[in-house]
Structures are given as C-alpha cells and as structure tokens.
C-alpha cells in the first residue's frame, strides 16, 4: 500500500467514524426511524468491514508499517462501535 492509498484509507475511516457519531446523535435525538436506523447501521458496518478487509490484506510500503497497523486498529475499533450501535438499535 502506497502512502497515498494509506492516506485515502485513513481519510475514509475518519469520515466513517464522524458519520457514525452524527448518526448516533440523531438516533439519540429521535430523528431517524427504527427501520432506517437498522438499515443505515448495517450499511455503515459493511463499509467498515470492507475497509478492515482491505487493510488486513494490504502490505505496507517500507516505513509505513506503523501507519498501517494504526489504520487496522481504527478499522477494528470502528467495527466494534458499529456492532454495539447495531445491537442497541435492535
């Protein structure tokens, strides 16, 4: 994985994380229906899992091992957060 690709993955994960936070706030405020929340949470979870898979398969360019490991951690944590959120919506 080149520095640009890794940067793009990290930006995507940050975006997904920010979106999860916005969605969680709207959920607490009662601004989304239960069915929408269930569906949207599933789509977010699938997207996080896709990034996670991509990062797991990736090989870091020399010197980027730490960054790649960090990105994998972010993807795993985000996946857990979304699993918990989905369980709460059920």
């Amino acid at each position, binding site marked *: 994985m080149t520095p640009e690709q890794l940067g*793009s993955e990290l*930006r*995507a994960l*940050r*975006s997904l994380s*920010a*979106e999860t*936070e*916005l*969605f969680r706030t*709207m959920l607490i*405020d*009662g*601004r*989304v*229906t239960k*069915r*929408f929340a*269930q*569906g*949207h949470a599933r*789509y*977010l979870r699938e*997207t996080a899992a896709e990034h996670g898979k991509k990062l797991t398969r990736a090989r870091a360019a020399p010197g980027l091992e730490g960054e790649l490991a960090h990105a994998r951690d972010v993807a795993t944590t985000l996946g857990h957060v979304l699993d918990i959120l989905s369980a709460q919506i059920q």
Partner: protein
Amino acid sequence: MKKVLQLTLGIMTALGGFVDLGQIVFTMQAGALFGYRLMWSIGLGAVAIIVYMEMCGRVAAVAQEPVFAIVPRRLGKRLGLLTLVASNLLNLLTCAAELGAIAIVIHLFTGLNERFALVAGSLILGVIVWVLKFQWIERTFGLSGLLMIVFGVAAWQLHPDWGAAASGLLPTVPAGKTALYAYFAVGIFSALLMEYEVHFYSSGAIEEGWTAKDLPENTIVSMSGILLGSLLTCALLILGAIVFLPRAIFPDLLSTTALPAALPFGLTALRLALLGILACVASAAVETALSGGYNICQFYGLKWDKNLPPREVPEFTKSWVGTLVLALMLALIGIKPLTLVNFSIIFGMVIMPLTYYPILKAAGDPALMGEHASGKVQQVLGWIFFGVIVVAAVVAIPLMVITHSGQP
C-alpha cells in the same frame, strides 16, 4: 389545468433525469469536499440542458422527429448504430443502478430484505409502466418527485452562507486538489446532461402530440422542469457543504444522503426525503427503460407509442421490458448501485457529443425546421455548450483514473 399538467413532462424529465441516484450522492459529495465551490457547474449544466432540451422538443414538435430518428441521418448509419448501442448500454447500467437504489430505499423504509425489495420493486415498476398511459406515467412520477423539495426546505432551514453560495457561481480551484475538483465538476455537468433525458423528453413530446403550436409550452416546460431540478441540485450541494464538510464526512452511501433532511425536522422529513428519493430513482429507472425501447424503435423506424396497447407495438414493448429485465438481472449480481452509477456518469459523458451534435444540427437546419430553425443566439449557445461537452468528454476518463473515481 391541462397546461399545468403539461409541466409534468419537464418535471419528470428533470427530476428523474438528473436528480437521480448519481446526482444525489455525487452532488452531496461535491458539497462535502469543496463547499459551495462547484455551484457554477450546476448553473452551467442547467443552462446547457435547457438549451438542448428546448432544441430537441422543438425538433420533435415541428418535424415530428425524436432524437434517434435524427441520429442515423446526421451521423451516418455506422456511427449512428454505435451511438445506439452505447446509449442503450448506458440506459441499462443506469437503470440497474436505479433499481438497486429503489431496493435500498424500500429496505430503509420497510425493513424488507433488500433482494426481495429489488425484485418486488422492479416488478411493481414494470406493472405501473405496462398499465399506465404516457401522460399518467409522467404525472405520477413527476408529481411524486416534488417530495424532494424537503431537501430544499432543509437547506434553507440550516441557514447557508448565501454570499459564499453566490460566489460559488464562479469557479475557484482549491490548491492541491485540481484533479478531484475537475472530476466532480465534470461529473455534476455530465449528470445534468445525461443522454436519456433528451431521448425521453423528445419522445414524450411526440407521445403528447405536440405540434409547432406547442412551441411556447416547450420552452416553458423545459425551463421550469430544469429550473426546479437545478434548484434542488443546489440544495443538495448546500446540504453537503453545511452538514458534511464541517464534520469531514464524505457521504458514500445513499442512506447517508437522507440524513441532512432529518437534521432540522426529524422523522417526518426523513420519511419525505426517502419517498422523494424513491420517486426520483424510480422515475430515472422508468425513463431509462422506456428510452431503451424508444431508441431502438426510432433508429429502425419501428412503431412505438406508450399510449397504444402493448400488442400493437410489440417491438417497443419487448425493448423496454427487456431493458428493465436485463437491468434487474445486472442489479441482482450484487454490484453496488453507486459503483454502477459512477461508471455510467463518466461513460455517459464520453459518448455525450454523439447525442448532442445531431440535435444541434437538426434544430438549426432550415430545410427540416423551416421558420422554427434555431436563431443565431440559440446556435451560438448550442455550439459553445457543445464545445464544453467535447472538452468534458475528452477529460472524463483520465480524471476518473487519476482520482480513483473521485476518492478524496
């Protein structure tokens, strides 16, 4: 009342034509990345499509010739055939993407399994198009698409910076992001001018029996529909700029695009937004499926008329039903609707000159149009926009490759 209802052709063409899956997500992404800076591309595309939609409506009303009757005569049989194949391939891809989007919205609304929703939604859509006459199709989808106004109201309610929005009408390239900015500018422009809009609009004008007497209506219908569609597109860009840009969110899911409507108003607005999106993507699926049938029949001189019973127009019926069925099969493979539509927007841009050149030539031809041939201003505008279309067509694929299909 009849005159008012005539507007629904323009509204359906515009809402299904460019406020579809691609435009909804693409425009919000553009707002999320560049704020108001791409407002100009909506303005440019809107004026371009008004100019060309008026031209193809005028040709249909005066010469009784829809787009694909003109194409082989202006481009020659071989290039005309290539245009037909490319256009119908584009219709197929877009239709598949819109069917996929219908399934997503039904799933979000009802919780039904997505694959079941895909098959059931496509079947219901097919039955609606089979049963209804053309005027009722355009009225049903045109009027239900008006629910998208909820996005306009939400954008207004979130208090945009109107000064910044107005300054977005002039292009300003952000430092270090030139290629990505150009990609989104081309994408928005392309989505506004998708070929099937003019195929559908010109065929619709003939379905409605327009003649030279209806030319004032043609101008009003094309302008009002596009104006409404482009205002809604601006609202989507504004929502992307207000809701997603400050939070560094890049909206990459159709469900994400419904959230900004719920932010100021809550549940009712969310439901209206989902229904509005459903109407627009269904409208686009209908337009692309019918355009598939119109294009083939017009190209080969076969009888076509949505107002006739299906057995009287067998080739036309088989063509549009075939487009819908093939699109359903493509959607069932499981390719993401947004991946399909992203590709169709760029592919649509590449083949766009082949659709708009014949319209420009036919509308300006005194031998065909008599006193209704394009005037000097219309011709100059037409050629200017054709130049922009050619430039955008040339750079579309390189930009897609450089930016990895618009990934920030």
